[in-house]
């Protein structure tokens, strides 16, 4: 067992015995960074496990008639037990191999569920299959405090809420309870990768439930147009993404090194939603949707997200400087309010939304500049460039001859890219110098 693995195991045991807190354990581990070789081994093992797992699932999916049903069930159960057994045997000397084998055991359990569902022709839309799989894997993560089964649980939870169309209180309560369990484990262990998957799953869940509730509400009121209702998805996703970005600075996250995950997901999710909202189709759908005046629940959602955002900003310290650090959030809220209150039914909605997209990207760059956060700054520049390229395609594809279109586009990109890179290097260099060289914030 490597020195790091030993220390990791020990610190987890200390946390369990109450000798040190999770934060203190995290700080001890930070003193001994894993070298790249170790990370490569982990990555290779996990990739291997994923490939073998996918192979097992596909093998049984091919439904070979040469092997009798009962033998197939026997094979999968035997494989599952052997994976778990070998994982246990390897846990002493080869902790990484053991973790990969444990993941394989969990995948084999899921494969068993799908095999049985195949044998007995259970309907192809079988959300309970994913739920059963999750309920089998979550205890592995909970009792053994293992990261990979936790990440798989988060993934399964996301998949389950995405395919389960039932809106009964039982299903919603079960989902909330499972999310609580998964997030508790994410913060307890703490597991950044599993957290990222859980956050994406949570955004899917929020979107799905709001969509279904809205659908029911419209059903009652008779103004039901399901394809137009889809236009609420980017708005809800945008509000959730921006809340994630605001939550990045909360102390519970910064103590566990989760700031990066929250910022990254917050910016990517918001940027993607704004990008979707910049298309003409979105404006058309939203106009049709808002014609009945059925968008007031979105206003309520917006108010809730403003309340939550202010709460998180206040929690991080001074409200005024917190606001300045979170300009993208303010821009987003203003944009959504504008879409809801000012523009419905107006032809300039699409123009306004395109402008908002650019203002948001500039706000991200400005926030990165203000907090000297290279990562945020770079993402802002990337978003801005991406938006510009899209606009260029949208505006000039029809108007210019194709050869000129590509040449002008290429020259603008190369010159723009070189200029941006020069500015970025200059700024990052000056920040590094002012900070006395490097640090966590300056990973460019």
């Amino acid at each position, binding site marked *: 067992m490597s020195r790091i693995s030993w220390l990791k195991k020990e610190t987890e045991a200390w946390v369990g015995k109450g000798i040190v807190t999770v934060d203190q354990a995290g700080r001890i581990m930070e003193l001994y960074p894993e070298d790249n070789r170790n990370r490569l081994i982990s990555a290779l093992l996990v990739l291997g496990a994923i490939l073998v797992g996918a192979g097992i699932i596909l093998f*049984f999916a091919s439904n070979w008639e040469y092997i009798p049903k009962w033998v197939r069930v026997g094979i999968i159960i035997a494989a599952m037990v052997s994976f778990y057994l070998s994982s246990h045997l390897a846990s002493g000397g080869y902790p990484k191999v053991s973790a990969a084998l444990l993941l394989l055991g969990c995948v084999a*359990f899921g494969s068993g569920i799908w095999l049985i569902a195949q044998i007995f022709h259970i309907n192809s839309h079988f959300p309970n299959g994913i739920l059963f799989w999750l309920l089998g894997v979550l205890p592995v993560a909970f009792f*053994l405090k293992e990261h990979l089964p936790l990440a798989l649980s988060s993934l399964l939870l996301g998949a389950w809420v995405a395919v389960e169309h039932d809106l009964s209180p039982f299903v919603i309560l079960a989902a909330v309870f499972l999310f609580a369990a998964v997030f508790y484990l994410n913060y307890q262990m703490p597991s950044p990768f599993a957290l990222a998957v859980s956050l994406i799953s949570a955004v899917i869940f929020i979107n799905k439930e709001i969509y279904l509730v809205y659908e029911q509400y419209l059903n009652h009121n008779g103004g039901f147009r399901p394809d137009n209702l889809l236009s609420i998805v980017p708005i809800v996703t945008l509000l959730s993404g921006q809340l994630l970005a605001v939550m990045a600075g909360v102390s519970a996250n910064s103590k566990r090194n989760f700031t990066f995950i929250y910022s990254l997901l917050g910016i990517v999710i918001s940027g993607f939603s704004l990008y979707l909202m910049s298309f003409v189709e979105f404006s058309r759908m939203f106009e049709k949707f808002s014609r009945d005046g059925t968008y007031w629940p979105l206003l309520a959602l917006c108010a809730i997200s403003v309340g939550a955002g202010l709460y998180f900003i206040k929690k991080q310290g001074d409200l005024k400087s917190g606001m300045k650090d979170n300009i993208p959030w303010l821009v987003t809220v203003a944009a959504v309010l504008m879409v809801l209150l000012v523009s419905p039914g107006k032809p300039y909605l699409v123009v306004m939304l395109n402008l908002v997209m650019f203002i948001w990207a500039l706000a991200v760059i400005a926030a990165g500049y203000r907090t000297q956060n290279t990562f945020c700054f770079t993402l802002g520049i990337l978003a801005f460039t991406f938006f510009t390229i899209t606009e260029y395609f949208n505006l000039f594809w029809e108007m210019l001859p194709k050869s000129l279109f590509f040449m002008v586009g290429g020259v603008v990109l190369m010159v723009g890219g070189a200029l941006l890179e020069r500015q970025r290097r200059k700024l990052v260099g000056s920040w590094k110098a002012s900070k006395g060289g490097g640090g966590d914030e300056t990973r460019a």
Partner: protein
Amino acid sequence: MKRGHKLFLIVILQVVFLLGMVGFKYHTLHFGAPVLLKTLPVDPWDMFRGEYVRLGYEISSIKRGGIEDNLNASGQVNGIKQEIYQNKTLYVVLEKRGNYWSAVSIWDKKPRLKDGQVFIKARLQYYDNRRDEYRLTYGIESYYVPEGEGKKLERQSNLEALVRVDRFGNAVIETVSIIKS
């Protein structure tokens, strides 16, 4: 508790769960009444389970006037308030008429059966107001086949499914075959 013991317990529970799932379905298949249904096939492929044929049945759409309707909210003039029944278990009573079994009544609680009848659990997908029909699913709409076989079945328009229905109304497909004319 030691890590090994915890893992051992989890593995046992997972194995018991898988065997339980098999047992549950096997119970229906072994003790259920055989019910032959007229079938209308469609196609595709499922990521986890491979090729399957999607099946529709004659009893998948039931005309409201064609059967005894015992749903509480069905007395309304213009269709039914379908959200009352959405995601709730309904029960359809089947009776053998000629070779095949047909629906005779629909209930929102377990029905009392006469001789020669079975009931099967159903879910309301939606109510077709235009045709005045219940669109129902029974959990037997997918039939998994070895790779390459799906297309053959798909091309057939005359299929029949032998389904087993246990006394709780659970159904499992036993076989799907081409109707011999």
